[in-house]
Structures are given as C-alpha cells and as structure tokens.
C-alpha cells in the first residue's frame, strides 16, 4: 500500500512544484500528519471500545449472576420451603429467616447507638485535631479493613470461650455489631458533616445547649444519611457467614423466647446466609439452595433500593437548604 501511495503522490505533485523543495517538505508533513491523525483516531476508537467493554462486562456479570440465580431458584420457592419447622427433608428456610431478622435487629440495636454516638462526638463535640479523635479514626479504619473471618475468630475466642456464652445468638450479634460499627460510624459522620453550620448557629442562637442543638437541629436533617448507613450495615448482617459459623453456630431452630425468656438469647442459631452455606456444602438439595439464594438476593436488592432511596432523599434535603 504505502510505496504505491508515495509514487502516486510524487507523480501528482511533480509537475506542480518540480523545483520548490519547501512545498515538497510541507506536503510530506501533511501526509505524515494525516497518517498520525488516522492512527490517533484508531487508538481513540480502540480506547473508547475498551471503556465500553469494561462497562459491558460489569453489567453482563451482574445481570448473569442475578438472572441465573432467579431462573434456577424461583420455581423451587415452594410452601414447604417456608414451613415453620426445619427438617432435613423440607430444608425449610423459615427458621433461618426469622433468625436472620433477630440477629440483624440485635446487632443493629447494639451497633447503631454506639456508632451514632461516636459520630456525634467526633463531629459535634471533639476539639479539632485532638489526639483522641486521631486514635478513634485510625481504629475505625482498622476495623473497616478487618475481614469477617477475623471477627469470627475473635468472637469465638472472646464471646464464646472467654465469656462462656457458647455458640449463641448473643455472641453472633455482638460479633456482627463490632463488624458493622465502622459502617454506621462513617456514614453518620458524613451525614452530620453535610448538615450546614447555620442549623447549629440557629440552635445556639435560640439559647439551646449543645445537646439540644444536636438532637433538635442537626440530627433530624441527617436522618436519611444515617438510615442509609444503617441499611448498609443491615445488608452486611444479612449476608454474613464467616463471622457467624463459629460464634452463632448452625442450629436451624428459632430460639424459644416463650419458654426460656431472655436465656433464649444464648441459643445457637443459623441465619439465612449460614443456612445457604450449609446447604451448598452438603450439596444434597441444589434446587432448594437456589431458592434460598433467591430469598437472600431479594432481601439484599430490597435493602439496596431502600439505601438508594435514603441517599436520594438526603441529597434532595440538602439542596433545599
């Protein structure tokens, strides 16, 4: 291709400028430039298609995972799967589902007050750049990076063994509470920081103390953001396995609060995610495992929608200010 092109060019330009070498050089430059422009255009198109490919793969993976689980699982969502009593025949997920709700509620009840409280301290009370604040931030970041299996190990060594709680709902919930604490803390912190200072000044200006200002002026407008964090934490509780198998165990029964009262908190329980892990590793009830995965997925999707909704509300609320 290129020798021919050169000849054509020389043949074309030869009569026009046989002697003027400047023109020839200009023309050569022009050719080189068009070529460069062409390669640039090709490179750009290539880069663009790579970027689109990356987005496409991500979308495809998501749709494929969700679609595959739904298609294989939905037909097996039978009433017996939701029976109140678990047997090794019906592998009912109902006890596990109830346990999941209990476990999540309990761990959030522990983590949310602590998380919100410490965020309030960090944002509203702490003097800037204090040593204590720095340590709290470092430890929070450390907590956030610790994998769930380490939490599981710790829970086993501390709550189960050292405190003699045995494998129990309570030990699992405490472990999860520590695990989601940084999530609640961080989102609450961000939500509080986003509240305009005018709110605080307004509160102080009306003669309210710090406590009243925080609870009456600052917290209400930070609620959607805090809720977003709580939902995120809830999602982690629902999906957690590694932190629970050695702290809460895998007994597929709802703790009997009616007969045992508060002591039922120290019964071993199996949450839905743990239930699914047990089913999947036994490999005997593949269809029911798919169905259990569907229930888990639906819960997670619903929580995600809620969190997105809360985030939207938060940003809208701040725009109104």
């Amino acid at each position, binding site marked *: 291709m290129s020798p021919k092109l050169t000849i054509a060019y020389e043949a074309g330009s030869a009569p026009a400028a046989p002697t003027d070498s400047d023109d020839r050089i200009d023309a050569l430059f022009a050719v080189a430039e068009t070529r460069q422009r062409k390669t640039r255009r090709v490179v750009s198109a290539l880069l663009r298609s790579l970027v689109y490919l990356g987005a496409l*793969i991500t979308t495809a993976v998501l749709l494929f*995972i969700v679609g595959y*689980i739904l298609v294989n699982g939905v037909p097996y969502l039978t009433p017996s799967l939701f029976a109140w009593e678990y047997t090794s025949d019906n592998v009912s997920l109902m006890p596990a589902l109830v346990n999941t709700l209990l476990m999540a509620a309990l761990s959030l009840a522990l983590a949310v007050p602590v998380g919100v409280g410490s965020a309030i301290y960090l944002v509203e009370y702490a003097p800037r750049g204090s040593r204590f604040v720095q340590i*709290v931030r470092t430890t929070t970041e450390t907590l956030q990076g610790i994998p769930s299996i380490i939490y599981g190990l710790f829970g086993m060594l501390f709550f189960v063994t050292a405190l003699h709680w045995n494998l129990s709902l309570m030990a699992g919930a405490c472990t999860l509470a520590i695990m989601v604490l940084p999530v609640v803390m961080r989102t609450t912190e961000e939500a509080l920081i986003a509240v305009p200072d005018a709110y605080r000044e307004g509160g102080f200006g009306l003669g309210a103390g710090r406590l009243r200002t925080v609870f009456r002026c600052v917290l209400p407008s930070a609620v959607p953001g805090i809720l977003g964090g709580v939902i995120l934490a809830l999602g982690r509780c629902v*999906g957690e396995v*590694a932190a629970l198998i050695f702290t809460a165990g895998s007994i597929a029964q709802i703790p009997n609060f009616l007969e045992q009262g508060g002591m039922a908190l120290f019964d071993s329980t199996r949450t839905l*995610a743990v239930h699914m892990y047990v089913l*999947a590793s036994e490999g005997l009830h593949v269809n029911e495992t798919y169905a259990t995965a569907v229930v888990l997925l639906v819960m997670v999707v619903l929580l995600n929608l809620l969190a*997105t909704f809360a985030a939207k509300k938060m940003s809208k609320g701040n725009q109104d200010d």
Partner: protein
Amino acid sequence: MSHPHIKEGIAKALFVGAAGISIIAVALICVFLFANGVPAIAQIGLPEFLFGTTWRPANDIYGIFPMIIGSIYVTGGAIVVGVPTGLLCAIFLSRFASGKIAAVLKPGVELLAGIPSVVYGFFGLVLIVPFIRANMPGNGLSLLAAAVLLGIMILPTIITVAQSALDAVPKKYYEGALALGADHERSVFRVIVPAATSGIMAGVVLGVGRAIGETMAVIMVAGNQPLIPESIFNGVRTMTANIVLEMGYAADLHRGALVATGVVLFVFILLITMLFNVIKKRGEMK
C-alpha cells in the same frame, strides 16, 4: 451545677464512651488473637510455622507456607481479573456514560457490592467450576475459579473508589487537554487517569484487602488442598479457608495453629491498611 449542665455532662460522657468503644474493640481483637495465636507459633517455631510447606495436623506438623502462597496467588489473580475491568468501568461511569446510563449502572454496581459472598460462592460452584472442568484440565475446583470469582467480587470496590478519584479531578485538566487539541479519549487516558492515579491505587489496595480476607466464596470454589499449586488449574487453600475448614473440630495445638493463621492474616491486613493510608495521604498532599 445546675440541672441542664449535668445533662450536658452526662451526654458528653456517653458520646466519648461510644467513641472509645472502637478503640476497645481493636484492642480486644489484638489481645485475644495474639494471646491465643502467639503461644502456638512459639511452640511450633516461627520459621517452621511460616515457611514449613507441610500442613498435617494429625502428625502435629503445622507449616502454613502453602496457605500464604495460596492467598497471595488468589489475590493476585483477582487483581488481574478485576482491576482492568473495574478501572475501565469506572472511567466509563465517570467520563463516558450519559446521565441516564450512569443512573442505571451505578445502583447496579452497588447491588454487586451487596450480593452476599455465599451467593457468589454458590454461583461459582454451579457455573464457573463446571465450566472450567469441561473446558480445561483438572476438576474445576481451582486457583483459576477462585481468581475469576474474586475478580468479580472486588469489581464494585475498585469501581466505586476509582470513580470517585476520577470525578475529583478538576475540570480544568480536561479542558486544558482539549484546548491542546487532544480528543476526548486522549484527554481522559493521558490527563485525567494519570491525575487520579493515587485514588485508583487506593481502590486497588482496598480490593486486595477484600480479596485476601474473603472466605466463604473462596472455600466453595478453590478445592482447598493445602499444597502449593503448580498451575492455575490446581486446587489451592487460602489462609482464610484454612481457618474455617478445620476450626470446627480442632483442639489444643491444632486450634492454636489455626488462630495463629488468623494472626498472620491479621498482620497482612494491617500492612495493607497502612499502605492504603500512605497512598491516600500522598494523594491528599498533592
């Protein structure tokens, strides 16, 4: 002291106490892990424990070198799979996608982050593993399966962090590149991406942390043989898998050795967190 002052004082004390709980938690985690793990390491011997290539609890031989290598291989594989895709997707979301497409894809990425790891693991078990078994050597439960699955699992982490880094690049960088005659793609890849490098690296490090700590999904697809894999089609056991697989029935020194595996993992994670902070700080200083 008047009544409101007491209330304020109590409230402040409560808030300080709440903030202190995370410090107490980290301290407790360290104390309990180290107190239970370090004696076992001392009894086995640190070099034998870290660099021993044989793990045979029945004979009281505890070398976790294959598991350390396993964790590193699996994490490396996840990076190879996840980082290019995630980065490209982040660039798409930040600089290419129209508002409508981004509005759909962004929640999708968040959903990907929300899917529990057992569901990922099960998906890998019923789809990725049989696919590898049918088309490649080995029985499918392999390093490759774990790497692909983990690569998918760290996608949302990398996308989210990289995207916020890309979004934070000042508009004038892009405009300057355009004014110099670069087209859109060139401006993005030669100016914006380099400007966001430290943020992107932070995302990668975060992804490494997630991958190395992932447990349930890896157990379900990796085969879990405590041997150093010779090819990507061999099975592999990570440190996390080692703990979960044997903790249920371990006693005495075996149990101590498993907790010590957790200690090694914990040290890895601490190093990664420190690296993450260094990168973040350097990014902020710029």
